């Protein structure tokens, strides 16, 4: 199985373990994610606030590149997904297309990596390969906002209570803990521009997580993971409390459930070390 792959910038930086785990599980499953040659910035976090034309033409360039390969374009980042998908939708209108990318034929579709893994046949493929089921691991599925909203763009039908991550957790044998903040905003790109607001939002989510019986959070977005993982120490100090809940990428858990040896390496990169938890659960 082959698809085009748009890694986005964070996979090279803060989300290296995301990239590595994607790499490992796709190799394991025999899926070929072919990196889009010469891909460029999706324009996330600033372009769409500043310049409409730019906000469309940046992703449109990538879409045009992808169309050459006649393969759907998969991206692991929720922000990239949002921008690429928004462009895909916008270019369906002739006026936009004429202005931004007249050569775009609109034959390919943008998919988030999570959606890719949530297709029925993928779930079956994953289920057949589970060697190390995550039994007894209590997991909070956390989608954040851009994966599901706005539904006109993401094409998600149950955006208030999305199920794709839940289904994957269930297939991996983990225990889903339901909560109200599945799709709450983590503050996303505000962390650099307005850290006070972002910290408030992160704190709300972590507070709610602490009140559940969950032992970890799983995400499908480099921004969400970074925000929730990296700020816990800071918030602990502020609040005089202890925030130490591991935050995983779903691909890391897939690797773990497949019994991949290299999984250990990824967890080293987390600020909240998940290894004690995984050892306690005899998963590592």
């Amino acid at each position, binding site marked *: 199985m082959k698809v085009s792959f748009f890694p986005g910038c964070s996979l090279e930086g803060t989300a290296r373990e995301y990239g590595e785990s994607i790499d490992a599980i796709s190799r394991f499953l025999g899926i070929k994610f072919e990196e889009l040659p010469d891909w460029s910035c999706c324009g996330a976090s600033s372009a769409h606030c500043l310049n409409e034309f730019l906000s469309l033409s940046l992703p449109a360039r990538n879409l045009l590149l992808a169309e050459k390969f006649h393969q759907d374009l998969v991206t692991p980042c929720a922000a990239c997904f949002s921008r690429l998908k928004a462009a895909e939708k916008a270019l369906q209108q002739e006026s936009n297309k004429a202005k931004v990318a007249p050569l775009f034929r609109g034959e390919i579709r943008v998919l988030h990596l999570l959606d890719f893994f949530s297709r029925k046949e993928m779930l079956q493929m994953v289920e057949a390969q589970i060697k190390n089921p995550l039994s007894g691991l209590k997991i909070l599925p956390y989608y954040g906002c851009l994966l599901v909203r706005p539904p006109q763009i993401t094409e998600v039908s*149950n*955006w*208030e209570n999305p199920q794709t991550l839940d289904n994957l957790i269930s297939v991996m044998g983990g225990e889903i*803990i*339901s*909560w*109200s903040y599945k799709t709450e905003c983590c503050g996303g790109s505000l962390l650099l521009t307005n850290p006070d607001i972002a910290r408030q939002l992160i704190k709300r989510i972590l507070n709610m997580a602490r*009140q*559940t019986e969950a032992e970890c959070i799983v995400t499908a977005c480099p921004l969400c993971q970074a925000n929730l993982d990296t700020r816990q120490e800071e918030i602990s100090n502020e609040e005089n409390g202890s925030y130490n809940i591991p935050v995983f990428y779903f691909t890391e858990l897939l690797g773990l459930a497949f019994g991949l040896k290299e999984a250990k390496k990824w967890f080293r990169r987390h600020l909240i070390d998940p290894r004690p938890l995984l050892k306690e659960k005899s998963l590592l």
Partner: protein
Amino acid sequence: MDEKVKTQQNLPSPVGAVLVIGGGVGGIQAALDLANSGFKVYVVEEESAIGGKMAQLDKTFPTNDCSMCIISPKLVEVGRHLNIEVLSYAEVVRLEGEPGNFSVQIKQKPRFIELDRCTGCGDCAKVCPVEVPNAFDENLSRRKAAYKRYPQAIPNAFAIEKRGISPCKANCPAGIHVQGYIALIKQKKFKEALNLIRKNNPLPSICGRVCTHPCETACSRSKVDDPIAIMHLKRFVSDWEYSQKELEVPRVETKREERVAIIGAGPAGLSAAYYLALEGYSVTIFESSSEPGGMLYWGIPEYRLPRAILKKDIEFIKQLGVEIRTNTPIGEQFSLEDLLAAGFKAIFLGVGAQKSTRLNIEGENLAGVIPGIDYLKAINSGKELPLGNRVAVIGGGNVAIDVVRTAIRKGTKEVFILYRRRREEMPALPEEIREAEEEGVKIHYLVAPKKIIGKEGKVVGLECLRMELGEPDESGRPRPVPIAGSEFILEVDSVIPAIGQSIDLSCLSQGKDWNISRRGTLVVDPITYATNIPGIFAGGDMVSGPATVVEAIGAGREAAISIARYLQGMDLHEGREKKLPVAEITPQEIKKHPRYHPPKISVTERIKNFQEVQQGFSEEEAILEASRCLNCGICSECLQCVDACLAKAINHTMTEKYLNLKVGSVIIAPGFSLTDPILRAEYGYGCYPNVITSLEFERILSASGPFQGHICRPSDHAAPKRIAWIQCVGSRDQSINKGYCSSVCCMYATKEAIIAREHDPEISATIFYMDIRAHGKGFDQYYERAQKDYKIRFIRCQVSKVIEHPKSKNLIITYVDENGKIVEEEFDLVVLSVGMSPPGNFRILSRTLDIKLTPYGFCQTDPLNPMETSRPGVYVCGAFQSPKDIPETVSQASGAAALASEVISLSRGQLVTKKELPPEQNVTGVEPRIGVFICHCGINIGGIVNVPAVKEYVKTLPQVVYVDENLYTCSQDTQAKIKEIIREYRLNRVVVASCSPRTHEPLFQETIRDAGLNKYLFEMANIRDQCSWVHMDKKEEATEKAKALVRMAIAKVSLTEPLVEQELSINKRALVVGGGAAGMVAALGLADQGFEVVLVEKENYLGGNLRNLYYTINGDNVQEFLNYLIKRIQTHPLIQIILNGVIVDAGGFKGNFKTGIMSGPGMAYRKVEHGVTIIATGGEEYKPKEYFYGEDPRIMTQQELEKKIGKKEIDPKNFQEIVMIQCVGSRVPERPYCSRVCCSSAIKNALKIKEINPSANIYIIYRDIRTYGFLEDYYTQARKAGVIFIRYDLQNKPEVSIEKEGLRVSVFDPSLRETLIINPNLLILSTGIIPRENEELATLMKLPRTPENFFLEAHMKLRPVDFATEGIFLCGLAHSPKPLTESLAQAKAAVSRACTILAHDTIMVGGIVAQVEKEKCSACLTCVRVCPYNVPFINDEGVAQIDVALCQGCGSCAAECPGKAIQLQHFKDAQIIVKTSALFKEKVA
């Protein structure tokens, strides 16, 4: 309309029957009106009972009446009405024809309980093992598969719900009631479970071990996790039986003479023998070998099927008298002919497939080549057959596996299986393969033998070929293709081919033309198993080719049924095809629960011997495993109800029925469905357990609901203290195509909050709303009370999200308060006020009936003809027309009934049934001869109360000449018996001791009346509801209480007297008071039905308030409509118009009123005699004193504006700034009500102005916008058009001043939090509606009024157009403010209600009425004051007089009369006293 009437007269006479679709309150009202007006009515209801949503409600606003209490009498009336036929579980599938003559086809689902036999006792539900969510309780409780929708349901009968055949049963070749026996195991009813299995399979111990269990393959549970361990459960119950001391062999009901011969004692033969023996035939099995069991004995190794177990099942069959003759082969020596000659009347052949199929390769005759079957037979007969050290078994079926595992147990060192396909294609059971591998068997896949190599005549090796898979062959599996040059040699000592068996047909008689297939099997009829030779049947492997045990058993049973039919000369085929579809369930929301695995003996242990490998379940495990069953079919067909129902009402063979009816017109009243709260997923419905819908909350509040009326929340059943309601969930929401207002939610939420606070004053109630829409009669006052008296918090805001606290499951709502502050508040329970959507089947319905729908999916109607659908002759009422409350539904229902009957009025009375009754016996002065019938009610009474003891006791009581006990006193045969006994014993009084007079008294009264007794010579003792049901644990005391209750009833009945009802003729003329829209439409409606009408109008012109209206909100021309009405009414031959008429005196009663009218310029007096009166005196716009009205030409009311625009007196183009102020003089202490129309009038006029002058700035200053129903679309349209809406409240009214430069309006805008100043060119005051002057009329006719002087109907919900005084009706603005369309509906409703009287020639009056003893009356006026119907008056003689025609028999006057001058018939003091003294009488020893 004129044309319509004319063309009708040329047609053949219409059908005097009406079809009513939907049995909710609308359908019920329409049906009753029509049936009481002389028409036959069919009510089609999709549920098992009528009652609709109203039956589910707890209370109704604004009177807080119990919903069930008020609808229940209507249900009973429908149920007992001679001319209403309720078709429950039914739907219309076709409608053809024209108004007056429609053909309808109706599909009725099977109920599986015979309606005319079911007594509603509920014994079936008691034994039913299947529980499903109770939809009537909105799934908050559970009910059985055998159920009654609710206790008061009509028809008063149970039903059994089936979704179809459960997949396990459908896939079982023997058709075993799998779901049924699993349900019984769950309930620990092991014996019953086994009996149920034996209905289809006489070999449960065997099938519990060696069945291929296709049931498990089909099990729906496998879509979720693993299938139910059905085979192990079967084994569990059979092992359980084995552990019991004695086997309970079924009784053979009738012995029959005929003898049947069965050839072969294998599973097919044994099964056929068992079922034939059960039928009473004498059965002999002829078995060629030395042991019965066939392949079960010879083919299956003991480690799978211990011989003792096999013997047990065979013994069970033998105990029924089946003879098994072993060592008796049938063939040339002893042929089938010989059997027939010996007197056997029928033969079943079940000889199986005994021959091994040959490999057909070189070397097959060498020593050491042993066919698999032969090997197993040898070992199973105790012979030793050494195979050497290395054995190759060829084949992939169960025989191959049995051989290898046997060989291992016999000491063979190395065993291979050679199979030419892959493991996936192996036909052997996966668990068998797994166990064989565990025991050390090696399987070579994709390998086939080519040649057996011998040395000295003995096997030494096997040459094999490797295979690859090609295209699928005829078996559907990929065809193995040899790979050239892949030969290799295996060294082996023995080769065992196990590639299949073939059939030995040597038992068949020569010379007969047997039908043999190409495969060498015997051909039979696939359903009856009859061969082509009459009297000879066959089944099992010899027919199917080698197959499974359970297939053979199934075939044997079916053949047995055929043989019995053959011998009894019945049709072999009839009714034997499968009827129900296979039940499918969607495996969502099902909790995973892994399958229980019973233990096995360890590998090391088991390969040493032939001990049974598989162990059974423990009792606990069996029950837990059985509990995993998903009850796919709903009813499990366990057949427990069949045994439990003593009335023999259960019929599991019922099928879908199609009925064809002829009707003259159709009314659709399908109601609504709740809008799915999932559409607003942000509120967490379905995720958070404590977020519930309003209807769920109704059920929680209801005393008969899931928690008996205790308010508790779903998550932990704790009593919630903080409850929030969120309004407009799925209403007023364009984003989900629900742009309309659901009209009722504001009020029901307020009511629920009030009732919740009444249940538990500690509850704090908060309602989050957008506008409070309290637009009905008395609603605003109710809303005010909710705030002031009940301290309910109303918070205006749209809640964006509900968040759940993970631990407490409490819910957090964030909102912006009145001061603009963001508040986070926690609640224990959140109720979503979900809106109304079209009924679930609306699309199918509209297609079937060919009616048009609105874009929202409701029924399309025209505001001036609100009950007419797009198809002539088909009328609509209720929420399907537009979301609405109960009274509007009831009005429309009556209105639709009027329209439906208008079409067929020529056929009035043609299809109705009237009862002919025998003359009544004269009992005056005759000594009472009392008959007492005591009911067991199945086990409902009999199980607690010692009925025979009560009977013996009653015999000792005076005047009792007959006592009997009945299983069900209400059953039809008992009714006949009671009539018989009344005659035989010359009874003149009857007592029934049974359930409740609420449901059954009329039935028994009818019975004694049929026997010639006056119906009042009857008394009922309630020994069920008030005795056995409430004293279940105290049987003795209950028996004593039952005796006392019966003693009291006997005492009372001895003093009862026959009451005679008087017959009075009816004057078929109607008087309509008021010549406005409502009055004119009512008059025309009655006249079109053929009744004479006198219409009195106070003014010298017709039209009333309609004269002030010019256009409706949807653009209709009102003046055109008015002119049309006036023209029609003036030319109608049956209508007399009296203008300038004033009513000056009034008297009489229903059917015979006399009213005096002064009329004309000269005020001439005339007396009008009439049978009914319709009050339509109307209302008018309030002329305000507020806001300088009348002082400035730029200030006017909405009606004045409309008139000026309509008459083109002003041009909206000239006005740029227009302010409209709402609620001027409305919703204030002087006039505390909402006038319902002003919001939409303002929007109507604003839109009109915007249409002419789009640039005009229009400001509507409002308190709550009350555009209910589809009017909401106009509110949306107005906002889109740029009309500006500014809210105010009573504390911050807008201020108006007239300045030099013009008008000045200042108003505080709460959204901007600033005061706005507007200088309008026009100031329009939206004033309410006040009733016309009506005090004199009210006094003359004794008609009650509200404090606001609108007339007061008999009942706010269910009798909206009736006065408490019978024969007088009301409609239009006289009743309350309402828009034209609702006035028109009410006018039609009044017509329909009036027809229920005018349709009859006479009425019966009297019966249970109050009577005054003149001598005792001191004219104190107590009765005059206390009577709720204003009946008593002081007559010319100076004493109280009570008209029998008017008295309702409530007894208030009798109870209050200080002089004891009034007695209520049938409840006279003496009768009550004798009853009470009977209670305190000494118990008779």
